[in-house]
C-alpha cells in the first residue's frame, strides 16, 4: 500500500484516537499538576437562627480575580502526586526511619489511603482474574456438552449475572447479606453466631467483594470461551482420537492451545476491569473495609462540597500507570506469540 493511501486509510481512526484518548489523558495530566489559588479569606460577623458568630469566609471577588488571571490554578509540579493522600513519599520516609521492624513499617504504610486502596485493588485483581478464567472455561465446556435444546436456556441463565448492572446487583445483595436479610440471617443460623456480619469484618468484606466479582465476571469469560469452542477444528480433534488421545489429552493438547489467544484476551480485559473495581464497593457500602483507586477518585470528586480535581487527576494518572504495568507482561507474551506465528 502506498504511504499516501495508508495515511488516508488510518486517518479517521488516528484522529478519533487522538481526540478521544490522547487529548483527555493529556488534559487530566495537566490538571494533576495544578492546585487551586490561595483563597483570600476575610473574617466577618455571620448571623442566623441560632445567633451571631465571627466566621471566616472567602472573598469571592478577589479569589475570582486571581482565577481569571490564571484559570488553571497554581502550578504545583508533582507535589500532588507525592502528598499524603497519594504516594506519600515523605510519610513513607518518616515511617521507614521511625518504625520498629517490618511489621510496624507495613502497618504504617497500609494506614495511608493510597496504599490501603492499592492493597485491596491488587488482591481483588489477582484473585478474581484467574478464578473468572478457570470458572468461565469450565462453564463453557460444561455447556458445550449439553444437548442442543438445553443450550439456549442454559446460556441465557448463565449470562444473567453479567446482565445485572454491578451497582444494582451489589445493592440487592447488600440488603440480602444484612444481618436481618435472608442470606445474612441464614449464615448466622448455620454458624450459630448472631454477631456474624459480612459487612463488619474486613476479611469477610474482602471475601464477599471477591466472590461477588467472580460471580459477576465469570459469564464474560464463559461466553468468550464458548464462542471459541465452536470453532475448534473437528479434524484435529478426530485425528487426536485416532491417535488414541483421552478426553483429558484432547483438552490439554488441542482445545486449550487453540483457545490460548482468547484466554489472553480475557486476561487483558479482566485485569483492566478488576483493577478499576468500584461499583461493588459503593453498592456494598464497603469503603470502611475496602477501598480501590477508583473509589478514591470518586471520593475526591464527590466530597462534602468541594471537588479536589487535582487529586482526582493525580489518582487517575496513577491508575493508568498501574494498568500499564499490569498489562505489560500479558502484552509482551501476546507479542511474542504473534511474532513466532508470522515469522
Amino acid at each position, binding site marked *: 500500500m502506498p504511504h499516501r493511501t495508508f495515511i488516508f486509510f488510518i486517518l479517521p481512526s488516528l484522529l478519533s484516537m487522538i481526540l478521544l484518548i490522547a487529548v483527555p489523558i493529556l488534559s487530566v495530566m495537566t490538571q494533576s499538576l495544578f492546585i487551586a489559588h490561595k483563597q483570600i*479569606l476575610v473574617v466577618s460577623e455571620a448571623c442566623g437562627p441560632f445567633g451571631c458568630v465571627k466566621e471566616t469566609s472567602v472573598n469571592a471577588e478577589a479569589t475570582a480575580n486571581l482565577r481569571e488571571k490564571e484559570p488553571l490554578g497554581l502550578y504545583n509540579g508533582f507535589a500532588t502526586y507525592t502528598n499524603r493522600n497519594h504516594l506519600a513519599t515523605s510519610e513513607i520516609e518518616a515511617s521507614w526511619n521511625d518504625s520498629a521492624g517490618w511489621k510496624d513499617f507495613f502497618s504504617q504504610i497500609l494506614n495511608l489511603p493510597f496504599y490501603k486502596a492499592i492493597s485491596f485493588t491488587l488482591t481483588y485483581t489477582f484473585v478474581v482474574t484467574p478464578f473468572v478464567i478457570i470458572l468461565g472455561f469450565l462453564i463453557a465446556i460444561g455447556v458445550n456438552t449439553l444437548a442442543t435444546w438445553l443450550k439456549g436456556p442454559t446460556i441465557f441463565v448463565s449470562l444473567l449475572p453479567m446482565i445485572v448492572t454491578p451497582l444494582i446487583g451489589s445493592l440487592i445483595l447488600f440488603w440480602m447479606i444484612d444481618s436481618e436479610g435472608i442470606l445474612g440471617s441464614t449464615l448466622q443460623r448455620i454458624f450459630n453466631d448472631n454477631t456474624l456480619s459480612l459487612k463488619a469484618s474486613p476479611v469477610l468484606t474482602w471475601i464477599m467483594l471477591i466472590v461477588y466479582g467472580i460471580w459477576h465476571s465469570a459469564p464474560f469469560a464463559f461466553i468468550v470461551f464458548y464462542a471459541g469452542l465452536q470453532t475448534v477444528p473437528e479434524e484435529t480433534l478426530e485425528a487426536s482420537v485416532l491417535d488414541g488421545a483421552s478426553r483429558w489429552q484432547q483438552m490439554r493438547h488441542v482445545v486449550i492451545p487453540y483457545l490460548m489467544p482468547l484466554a489472553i484476551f480475557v486476561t487483558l480485559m479482566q485485569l483492566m476491569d478488576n483493577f478499576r473495581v468500584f461499583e461493588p464497593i459503593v453498592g456494598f457500602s464497603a469503603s470502611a473495609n475496602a477501598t480501590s483507586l477508583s473509589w478514591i477518585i470518586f471520593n475526591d470528586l464527590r466530597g462534602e462540597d468541594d471537588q479536589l480535581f487535582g487529586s482526582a487527576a493525580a489518582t487517575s494518572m496513577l491508575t493508568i500507570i498501574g494498568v500499564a504495568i499490569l498489562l505489560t507482561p500479558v502484552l509482551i507474551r501476546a507479542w511474542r506469540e504473534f511474532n513466532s506465528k508470522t515469522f
Partner: protein
Amino acid sequence: MRILYKIALATTFIFIFGQASYAGCGISGGSIRILSNDFPALHAVVGAAEQCAGSGVTFTKNQTKEHKNFQVAALKANPAEFTSAVIANGSLVPLLNEGLVRPLDDLVAKHGRGLKKHQLITINGKIMAVAFMANAQHLYYRKDILDKAGVGVPTSYEEVLSAAKAIKQKGLMAHPVALNTKKGWNLGEEFVNMYMGYKGQLFKPGSAVASVNNAKGVAALNMLKSLTEYSNPDFLTFDSNATAALWEAGKLALATMWGSRGVTILDDKGSTAKITSNTVLAGAPTVAGGSTPATTLWWDGFTIAKNISDKDAEATFIAMMNGISTDMVKANNDAAVWLIDGYVPGKAAAGVSASASAGATPYPMLPYMGLLHTALGSELSEFLQGNESAQQALADVEAAYSASAREKGFL
C-alpha cells in the same frame, strides 16, 4: 351520561376555583427556577411557591438529592440555570465561596414583611439567605423499653451508655443503640456533634489549620466507640435510611437521628402502633458533665442567584415568600421544625427545639469545613473497628485535611 357530565363540570369548577384562590402573589411576570433537596418539607415550600405560576410567570423546579453536586456549576452559568437554590448551612458555603448568590437586603426591605430577624442569614452585615426550617440530630428513645429496663430518660451520653447496658443485660435487645455512623459524611457528622458536646475547637482560632488531635477529640472518639459497642456490628454502613428502618422494625431503643426523620418515623406507615406510640423525641444528650448538647444545629433556607435579571430575582423572591407563608405552615405544621410565624411545635419537633433551646452549637459555616468533614468521614472508621488508636486516627484526619486544604488554597 348525565352523572359523568356533572362530574366533569364539577372538576372544571374546582380547577378554576382552585387556580383563582391561589392567584395574587402580585408578580407581574418573569421566570422562577428553583433547585432544592428532595424531602417532604421542601416539597411543601416549593409547592406553595409554585402557586405563583401563571399569567406571564413561568415556573420550573428541580428537587433532587443530587442538588449539592451541581448547584455551583448551575449557578455559575450566566444567566444562571436556577434563580433560587434552596440550601442548608453546609451547602450555602460553596455558593458563598464562589460569590454566586446575591445580597437580599433590598428585596427583604421591599417584600420581606413578616420575616423574623432570626430567619435572616447575614454575613458581614448583608442578608445572603432566608432560613425557614431547623434540623438537628438528637435522641430518639423507646419509653416502653426504658421502663422495662428500669432506667430513666437519659440526658447525657454517659446515661445513654448505662441505659444501653441495662437493656442488654436484661436481654431486651441485643444492639439497642444506633447512630448514623456510615463511613463518610455521616460518621464525620457524628464526630463533629460529639466534639461540640466537649466544646472542642475544630480549627486553630483565626486560621484554617485543623486542631482535632487533642484530649477532647480523643474523648469524643472514645465516647463514639463506647456507643457503637452497643450497636449492630454493621454500624459502619448505617445512614439515615438504615437507622430509621431499624427503628421502625423495633430493633433499637436509643438512637441519635435527624429531627427531620421524626414525621416519617412517627406516622402509621412502616412500623407497628406499639413502636410508634412509645417513640419519644428528646433533646440531644450532653456529654462529660457539659451543658452544651452534643449536636450541631442546621437550618434550611433559600438564596437568590446572582447571575439573573433583577426582574427574575424579584419574582423568585416573592414566590419563595409565598412558599414560606403562614398558610403553608398551617397546612404542613408537622412536616418540619419551621422558623416561621404560625408554627405550633408538635411531637416530631420536640427533639430539635429542646436541643436548640439548650444552647446547641450551629454547624460551622467555614469555607474549609467541608474538607475537614470529608477527612473526618474517611479516616475515623479504623479506630471504631479497633484497628488503630484514637490519636493515630485524629492525626490521620489532620494529615488528610492538610493535604486537601493545601490543594484548595486554604493553607
